[in-house]
């Protein structure tokens, strides 16, 4: 061990006693001291003077210079961002003329306001004596110069301080502009110390934004570098106080862009007093040149697929080959657009053996830049994403523009990216970013990122990362951009630190007088949309059958080219030709590229996909979207699928579901050149919606269409789900005898009844008793309970003849959130691959018969007690009614006999009812809604608790008279049990049920006590849920019936 100084640096002190040194210890002695990098800008005020900022800036340049000379001496983020910000001030002023002429079109301006110590300190002395005492001590020794300049940027009428002049580094930025790296939503972002800079977005001429990502001297444009190197700090006469910044700039003597013979056309920068900006002898200048070559990017991004020429105006090649399986982003900065009148850039490229030459044509001159993978001299670098194991793609939704500019108010852009390198997971979705521009004439307007709370009139919201690729084994990451109240026509893509342009080719709607009406039936299990062209009065053209909702063209523009292979559908080709790790992501997190009627078609399952993290405000695509993929593939582990949104009272979820449907409809209208704001909408609600649910729906349908389709509420109609099918069936001539007709609409969640007499609806009734009760678990409130007997019987045994469905079935069974009804619905959807219908028909027929008998008995009683004669025609609608022909019998005569038995029991006498079970049972509601005359009076709703001897309008009425009601219902249930036995016996005789089948146990179950479950479930499902004054639109009749059915499934 050797002698060592007890100091920060060993200067070789000669003694272990206190010993005089020749000179003080100064920073220069400390070159040998290895500093740690400084990432925390909290270190940037570490000097004992109020003017610390000025000296720390000097220190920042010293540190960054050290790192430049010796990379192991890392300066750290704090110093780099400070140096970058100060260089930004120089660069901003250098490009001032350019910005004024090209990029600042909305009143943005820069001012240099003069401040004089001798004059302006008087106000400080008067108003802030404490501060005055301090700065008066220090100003003259620390700053010396009497005059300072404040650089003020004004935007939207708000002033922001960008910098103050400094006799030591030229400028210092305010400490509130310092940035920290923070983690938000799983990604690293830069956050300004002061909130006032959150919305500061000043585009650089060279791409990107000033005062954001640190950009050191070497990364800047050649013009600017030569200005700093040769003009500002090239002279020996620069004041000694500029030593640190001068040494930093002069350390770039070997930079490829620095040339001694570089000539620049420069002009003075003026202050608000029209003085030339001279800071401690340094005369700050602005460029007076337009440099076409500066519009080329230094790098050109190569993607391992062809960019869709239908969707994007990409690179044109002088010597193209049809075998080319790659493409390039346009290697230009967005500002190149200012050279041209349209979005068409006069440019092409020639592919050479080892390089690509890109030509830019302007004012009759040809400018060329050559790019190579291993560039030499002036060549730019080709960044090959395939070689870098980076995959990315993007999709724009919608991809069509309305001819009415104000209607182009919403665009969502999905970016999907993946690190394909198994070795080093260094790339994630955070490292791809987009910037949007709108070219209007020769003006190029940057669409700035704005926070929703800032109430901007238009802009792009900060990107939201929905999925992160956490490991190499996982799929890709996704992020979404949302533009509001503006379209865009230039897109800058940044991958890592390289940028390139994409110029979207938009579909455009034509101005016509064509209008449409859409009917949307948002059902418990399925959702259906039908479309009808309107007549010249804007009403649905009743002379034609409504159309199934289906599109001819995609509504999403993906970046990748879609192969010409007619063997597969277009929708499938779009999805299959994206890179593998993105396939599931675009299916599960975005809108389908095309509702083609084959791969994607209505009806769809009423299901919404959303992220687990419920702390985030629900937003379409950012965290939720319609689960078009449901029952086809699984969402990733971070997402859930919700299937109960119709009755769940979660307004946010419903709103998102409706919003996506409306955006799809908007796209459809524009594709058909429809007049968007003359569109009409029809939506449906069941009569059994209770108060709050009805209000939620009303609110959504009042607000969403206005924002998306620009239609007033007068163009939106709500009809009852119950009556709509009648109009369709009537139109289709399914109802020959219209004397007394009942429509029974059995859905997943509810069953609706409407009684028509001579084509005029008399009464309607709705009960929350659909076919889902067959697949559910009675009134068990726990979503993950799986006790339904039907489910239990097949869960472990049912097999699919398609491996993907087999896998999916296994997944579903093990997902806690999947309900029994969801899984059984999945079986039913894929009936042909598992034959569940046959099993159900064989094993559970008596349960379905009980369900049907209950409905018919209830209906007959309800009609009778409302003074109506027995219907002579009964028409079934709704997807739920399919269990009748699927699991009970396809023989109409058998069904007719059941109904006749019921009517005989309730009405007495003999009956001869006509039965209709049409094919289009789900569609009938939607179609019927289009046929219904909006001017007809609405049908009278009645509520029926199973007894009409008293009025049971409100919950309070039932509470008061519950015992009377119970007595009456017990009689009814006895009749129902007896009727059920008769029906079973009759069906046995007709061989619909095996004669040897043991139906006695079902009869016995039906005869068991109904009083107790009625009391129990009335209390839990009605009395404890609703206040006395709430009108009770449902029927308590079914409460013990639901429980009974659940028990029967377990027999």
């Amino acid at each position, binding site marked *: 061990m050797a*002698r060592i100084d007890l100091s920060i640096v060993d200067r070789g002190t000669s003694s272990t006693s206190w010993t005089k040194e020749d000179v003080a*210890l100064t920073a220069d002695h400390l070159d040998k001291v290895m500093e740690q990098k400084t990432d925390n800008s*909290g270190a940037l005020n570490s000097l004992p003077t109020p003017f610390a900022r000025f000296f720390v800036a000097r220190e920042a340049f010293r540190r960054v210079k050290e790192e430049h000379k010796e990379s192991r001496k890392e300066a750290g983020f704090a110093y780099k961002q400070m140096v970058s910000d100060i260089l930004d001030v120089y660069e901003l002023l250098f490009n001032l003329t350019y910005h004024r002429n090209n990029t600042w079109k909305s009143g943005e301006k820069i001012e240099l306001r003069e401040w004089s110590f001798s004059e302006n300190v008087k106000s400080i002395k008067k108003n802030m004596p404490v501060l005055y005492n301090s700065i008066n001590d220090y100003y003259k020794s620390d700053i010396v110069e009497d005059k300072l300049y404040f650089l003020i940027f004004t935007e939207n009428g708000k002033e922001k301080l960008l910098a103050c002049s400094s006799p030591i580094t030229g400028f210092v930025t305010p400490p509130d502009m310092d940035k920290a790296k923070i983690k938000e939503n799983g990604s690293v972002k830069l956050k300004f110390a002061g909130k006032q800079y959150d919305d500061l977005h000043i585009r650089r001429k060279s791409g990107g934004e000033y005062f954001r990502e640190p950009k050191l001297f070497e990364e800047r444009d050649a013009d600017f570098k030569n200005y700093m190197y040769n003009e500002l700090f090239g002279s020996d006469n620069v004041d000694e106080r500029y030593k640190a910044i001068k040494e930093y700039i002069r350390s770039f003597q070997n930079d490829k862009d620095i040339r001694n013979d570089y000539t620049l056309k420069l002009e003075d920068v003026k202050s608000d007093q029209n003085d030339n900006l001279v800071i401690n002898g340094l005369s700050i200048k602005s460029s007076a040149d337009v440099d076409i070559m500066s519009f080329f990017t230094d790098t050109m991004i190569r993607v391992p697929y062809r960019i869709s020429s239908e969707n994007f105006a990409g690179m044109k090649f002088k010597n193209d080959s049809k075998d080319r399986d790659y493409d390039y982003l346009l290697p230009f900065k967005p500002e190149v657009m200012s050279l041209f009148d349209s979005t068409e850039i006069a440019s092409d490229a020639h592919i050479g053996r080892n390089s690509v030459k890109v030509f830019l044509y302007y004012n009759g001159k040809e400018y060329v830049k050559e790019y190579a993978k291993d560039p030499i001299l002036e060549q730019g670098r080709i960044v090959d994403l395939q070689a870098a194991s980076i995959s990315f793609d993007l999709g724009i939704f919608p991809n069509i523009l309305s001819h009415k500019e104000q209607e182009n108010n919403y665009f969502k852009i999905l970016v999907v990216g993946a690190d394909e390198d198994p070795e080093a997971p260094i790339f994630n979705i955070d490292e791809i970013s987009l910037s949007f521009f709108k070219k209007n004439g020769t003006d190029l307007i940057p669409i700035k990122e704005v926070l929703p709370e800032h109430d901007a009139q238009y802009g792009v919201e900060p990107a939201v990362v929905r999925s992160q690729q956490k490991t190499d084994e996982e799929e890709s990451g996704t992020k979404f951009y949302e533009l509001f109240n503006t379209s865009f026509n230039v897109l800058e893509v940044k991958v890592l630190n390289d940028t390139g342009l994409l110029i979207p080719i938009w579909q455009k709607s034509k101005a016509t007088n064509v209008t449409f009406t859409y009917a949307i039936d948002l059902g418990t299990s399925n959702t259906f949309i039908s479309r009808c062209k309107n007549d010249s009065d804007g009403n649905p053209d009743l002379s034609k059958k409504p159309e199934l909702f289906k599109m001819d063209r995609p509504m999403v523009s993906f970046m990748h080219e879609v192969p010409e292979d007619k063997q597969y559908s277009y929708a499938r080709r779009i999805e299959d030709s994206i890179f593998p790790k993105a396939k599931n992501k675009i299916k599960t997190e975005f809108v389908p590229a095309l509702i083609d009627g084959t791969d994607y078609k209505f009806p769809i399952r009423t299901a919404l996909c959303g992220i687990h993290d419920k702390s985030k405000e629900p937003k379409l695509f950012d965290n939720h979207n319609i689960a078009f993929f449901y029952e086809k593939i699984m969402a990733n582990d971070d997402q859930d699928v919700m299937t109960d949104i119709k009755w769940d009272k979660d307004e946010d979820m419903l709103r998102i579901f409706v919003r996506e449907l409306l955006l799809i409809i908007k796209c459809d209208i524009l594709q058909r050149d429809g007049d968007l704001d003359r569109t009409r909408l029809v939506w449906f609600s069941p009569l059994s919606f209770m108060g709050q649910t009805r209000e939620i729906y009303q609110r959504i349908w009042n607000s969403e269409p206005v924002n998306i389709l620009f239609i007033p509420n007068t163009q939106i109609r709500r009809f009852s789900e119950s009556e709509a099918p009648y109009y369709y069936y009537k139109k289709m001539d399914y109802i020959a005898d219209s004397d007394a007709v009942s429509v029974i609409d059995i859905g997943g969640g509810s069953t609706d009844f409407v009684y028509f007499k001579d084509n005029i609806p008399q009464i309607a009734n709705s009960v929350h008793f659909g076919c889902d009760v067959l697949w559910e678990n009675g009134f068990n409130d726990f979503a993950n309970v799986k006790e339904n007997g039907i489910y239990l019987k097949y869960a472990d045994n049912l097999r699919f003849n398609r491996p993907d469905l087999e896998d999916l079935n296994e997944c579903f069974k093990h997902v806690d959130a999947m309900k029994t009804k969801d899984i059984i619905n999945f079986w039913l959807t894929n009936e042909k691959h598992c034959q569940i219908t046959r099993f159900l028909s064989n094993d559970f027929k008596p349960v379905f018969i009980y369900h049907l008998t209950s409905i018919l008995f209830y209906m007959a009683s309800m009609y009778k007690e409302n003074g109506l004669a027995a219907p002579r025609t009964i028409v079934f609608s709704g997807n739920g009614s399919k269990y009748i022909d699927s699991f009970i019998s396809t023989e109409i005569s058998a069904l007719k006999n059941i109904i006749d038995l019921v009517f005989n029991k309730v009405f007495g006498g003999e009956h001869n009812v006509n039965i209709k079970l049409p094919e289009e049972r789900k569609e009938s509601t939607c179609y019927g809604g289009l046929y219904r005359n909006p001017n007809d009076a609405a049908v009278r709703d009645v509520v029926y608790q199973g007894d009409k001897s008293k009025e049971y309008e409100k919950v309070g009425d039932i509470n008061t008279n519950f015992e009377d009601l119970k007595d009456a219902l017990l009689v009814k249930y006895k009749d129902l049990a007896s009727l059920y036995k008769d029906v079973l016996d009759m069906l046995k005789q007709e061989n619909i049920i095996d004669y040897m089948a043991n139906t006695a146990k079902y009869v016995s179950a039906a005869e068991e006590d109904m009083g107790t479950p009625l009391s129990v479930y009335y209390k839990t499902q009605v009395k404890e849920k609703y206040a006395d004054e709430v009108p009770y639109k449902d029927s308590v009749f079914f409460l013990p019936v639901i429980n009974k059915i659940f028990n029967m499934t377990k027999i």
Partner: protein
Amino acid sequence: MKKVFVFCIGGTGIRVMKSVTMLMASGMSTNGYTVVPVILDPHLDLEEKKNLHTLIGSYQNIYNKTTNNGSLNHLDGFFNSEIVTINELNNQLNDTQQAAGSNERFGSYINVANLATDDINNYFIQTLFSTKNLDSPLSVGFKGNPNVGTVVLGEMIEGADWFKAFKQHCEKDDRVFIISSIFGGTGASGYPLLEKKIKGADSQPAVKNALMGAVTVLPYYGLKDPSTTGSDIDSANFYTKTKAALAYYEKTVKSDYLYYAGETSLIQVYENDEKKQDDTAHFIELVAASALFDFLQREKPETQQFLTRAIENAQNSLDLVSLGSGYKEIVKRVADYKLLGALIDILPNENYFPLKKNRGFNDDFYKDAAFKALVRFTEIYNKWYQELSTNKRAFAPLNTDNLKKMEGWVKNVSLDAKDDSYYLLKMIQTSNANKSKDHDNKFRFFLQFAHEAIDYYTKKILK
């Protein structure tokens, strides 16, 4: 009474002053100067500061017992120099840091709101201070923010009673010594500021012209990663801050003697909790403390002087050899006090010690307040040495474990006293030789005989 005003700024100032007190107790000479410590720290409730106040109070108590409250001359050995607090000088109670410890926000303190919204000076303020600076209470505004500290401390100093008292009581030939660290918040801002205020006291020549020394403590310890503790202080910046500050000091500080003490690498890493700052005593603090004693021996220089010292071998545990000859006196003084501590332990139980009868060093003496004060002080001293000898790097020149083999009490030196009996015998001899009738202060006699006995054997260290 010639005085040296010792300004102890921030946590480092407090810890160095602790070492100064310990060295004074050990017998280091202040060359006749009365030490007047002035503690500047914005942390009102800092435990370490309270402990220093208590320690100084204990020292004064013992010193006063030995001098019969000033009626006798000071002793030559242990506790030979006087400490007087600034409060006692001026008979005032205001603490030095009340304004800085308040919860008032810095922005309010400097009246930012008084500026009209369109006053261009708003931009001037925005250039100097961050919103966070302006919104921080003064009690925390110092943390690593010397730019804020400068303004607040400047105002505090200007209007403070203690500063007025200092200016009033600083007389010709009095001296000023400033202890601060360069890499923190309070110390880094306080030193140049205080110096500026003192040098700027044009109307008080005794103050303006007082011989001034300062020790600037350079980084010598690290702190744990602030991201794990939530602290605002990141020791990753210590060297950077030091470099920046030294560059700034180059043209601003004017002390006649400027001492530097620090480490070339941060060997020790402490918990990062500024509220506690209960970091254990460190060798560099002892070195910084030694600067005061060196300063008090020097005359006014013709030009500004910069002083450093080395250690002979850069070992993690330092003994007399690895420390080097320059540390002989410090080692001797610490060895002396540690021997005194041993005697304090032994003597109350020594039944056959003749001085029990001759000098009244009996049970009553050992139960007396004076001796008990000495015992308490010694306990703190022992803990201080224990910390020094186990820290990184360790100041550990002594072997104090075996009282039966005391020739090795100081590593690398063989003392003639083999065990405690040598020192007891020497105390008896010293007592017998002392015929003084000036006083009957048994406590003073005890310290005097003990020191003479110990010194008899330990002066060998200085050879």
